[in-house]
């Protein structure tokens, strides 16, 4: 069973910190893949669904494409121009945009949904495969950054780590 790193198995915080650090050292950043924007439909936010070659050995193509397609759908929903967005725009204009002091825009609501979705995807699918997706909003909506981690094998030694690792091993 692929376990998560135990958050606080030891009462001793110093040991725990030490162990997590060792685990971090054991998974070092090897590479980053950047999924670029797809401008074929204009300036609305879409990302390319082309499967990057660096991920070929790490994750199934369908899972990756699903993630990107879902993200694209979320962004399309945020930027949709329709009845609700007109209503929001007119209402905001009528209240001299003061209404945004108490209310979130629809875009912001969808961005929160996206952040939750990405976290969920990372926990369930990507982290077990040694990958990590960065929310595009942190990269200026330009790219989806996928960090690829390699296990490094051996790093500095520590007495605590083996017990922790032992508990995570199956």
């Amino acid at each position, binding site marked *: 069973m*692929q376990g998560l790193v135990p958050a606080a198995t030891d009462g001793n915080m110093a040991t725990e910190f030490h162990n997590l650090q060792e685990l*971090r050292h054991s998974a070092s950043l090897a590479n980053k893949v950047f999924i670029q924007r797809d401008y074929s439909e204009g300036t609305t936010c879409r990302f390319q669904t082309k499967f990057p070659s660096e991920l070929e050995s790490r994750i199934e193509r369908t899972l990756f494409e699903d993630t990107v397609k879902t993200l694209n759908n979320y962004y399309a929903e945020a930027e949709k121009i329709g009845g609700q967005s007109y209503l929001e725009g007119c209402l905001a204009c009528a209240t001299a945009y003061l209404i945004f002091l108490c209310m979130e825009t629809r875009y912001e609501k969808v961005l929160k949904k996206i952040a939750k979705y990405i976290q969920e995807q990372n926990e369930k699918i990507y*982290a077990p495969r040694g990958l990590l997706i960065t929310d595009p909003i942190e990269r200026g909506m330009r790219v989806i950054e996928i960090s690829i981690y390699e296990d490094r094998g051996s790093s500095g030694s520590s007495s605590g780590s083996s017990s922790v690792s*032992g*508990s995570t091993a*199956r």
Partner: protein
Amino acid sequence: MHLGVSESMRECEYSQISTRSSTPMETPYKKRTPKKRKWESFPGRNKFYCDGRIMMAKQTGVFYLTLVLILVTCGLFFTFDCPFLALRLTPVIPVIGGVLFVFVLGTLLRTSFSDPGVLPRATPDEAADLERQIDVANGSTGYRPPPRTKEVVINGQTVKLKYCFTCKIFRPPRASHCSLCDNCVERFDHHCPWVGNCVGRRNYRFFYMFILSLSFLTIFIFAFVITHIILRSHQSGFLNALKDSPASVLEVVVCFFSVWSIVGLSGFHTYLISSNQTTNEDIKGSWSSKRGKDNYNPYSHGNIFTNCCAALCGPLPPSLIDRRGYVQSDTPQMAPPTNGITMYGATQSQQSHMAAATPLLQQQSSEPVILTGSPENGGSLPGRTSLGLGGPCTSLPLGQPTPPTSTPSLSIHEATDMLPIHGHGHTLNHSHPLQEPIAHHHFLTPEEVPSPPGMLPCGSPLGHSHTVQAGFYNPASQDSLHEDSVRGLVKLSSV
């Protein structure tokens, strides 16, 4: 030590990254410096007020002039003309005037103080990745190739995306680099000194509302001041009327000159909105049928109504630069690695990822950027702003001359492309002599941008990525790599 880990390795091949937020006890090291907000280290040439809540361009003198003109004229109107008009005609007049005034002021402040849609600069990793892709495409040996463009087909039209050497990104369609603010701005319309800010995707509707309501206000004041003087002169003669209310003369003069320019500008922007173009595109004639029979605007929704609604009532995207977020310091105390790999909520800086993931990649993104940032465009500023103070946005050679993207041979060509002036063709000629100094500055940029891997000390993202991939990752030394220069030297020695 890693026996346990290798066992789990055999089973699942890669150790899982913890995605849970870190515990509160995250730093055994005390922070030595107070936390800074991101706006304090923003690489563009913007001014920030109210702890990052307000964002303006560097030159704000003309904005204060606008404010003073509006406040003084309206103040005089309400003080001297309104009492007479309210009594003689109807008290509705000051009320309408008041509403218009408040609306004008509100939209002006909103346009001036908000983020126009600035694109944050590329992180070193992104820049390195792009450079690598371009090198692969060109097969170049290290000499800087000519300006980089990418072609995309948008709704059937071929559009060229240009690479911005300052921001190290391929600009999205309709984005442009403003040299006055030194930022790439999405859906860049123009840089307006009267408003003290760029006009882009996020504040275009406020700008349009501002000039529209200002036109109404100007016409309103003009009409009623004239009415006031006429009514008074029926009572006591023309000259006496002028003597009784001298402020009215000033108001008439201001309004007379404003009406032509503001109303003209409103009309022009109404046209732009209905055809879904930016000032930039209109001036360049990007989508005009003169360029070719098949040339059409791929962004237009087809009919005027939809275009207007989309521009004015469409969704308002959030700011992409997190001005008030805190900068995660890149010193090793952030190495408590759980922070780095687990925090990817919107409030955390990108640097938290980088810091923990690879201390070597902790290179502050601001550092290489600062190298390329100000010097080139500094020379152009005085010449630019002095040229057009005679009137509103119409005659100002605003916004950007070619950003440092083009080689000198192309720079003049680019200048005509890039100037977003409202319809004054002759001012384009002014751009050519002004381009020369910029062209000289452009020579500097190729050297400043770290394209050959590992050649530049401590600023080279390529150097970073190469060394990481080569497996140079000494966790013991990460604590000792405090200084950027030390890091750079260490890397150079390892390469």
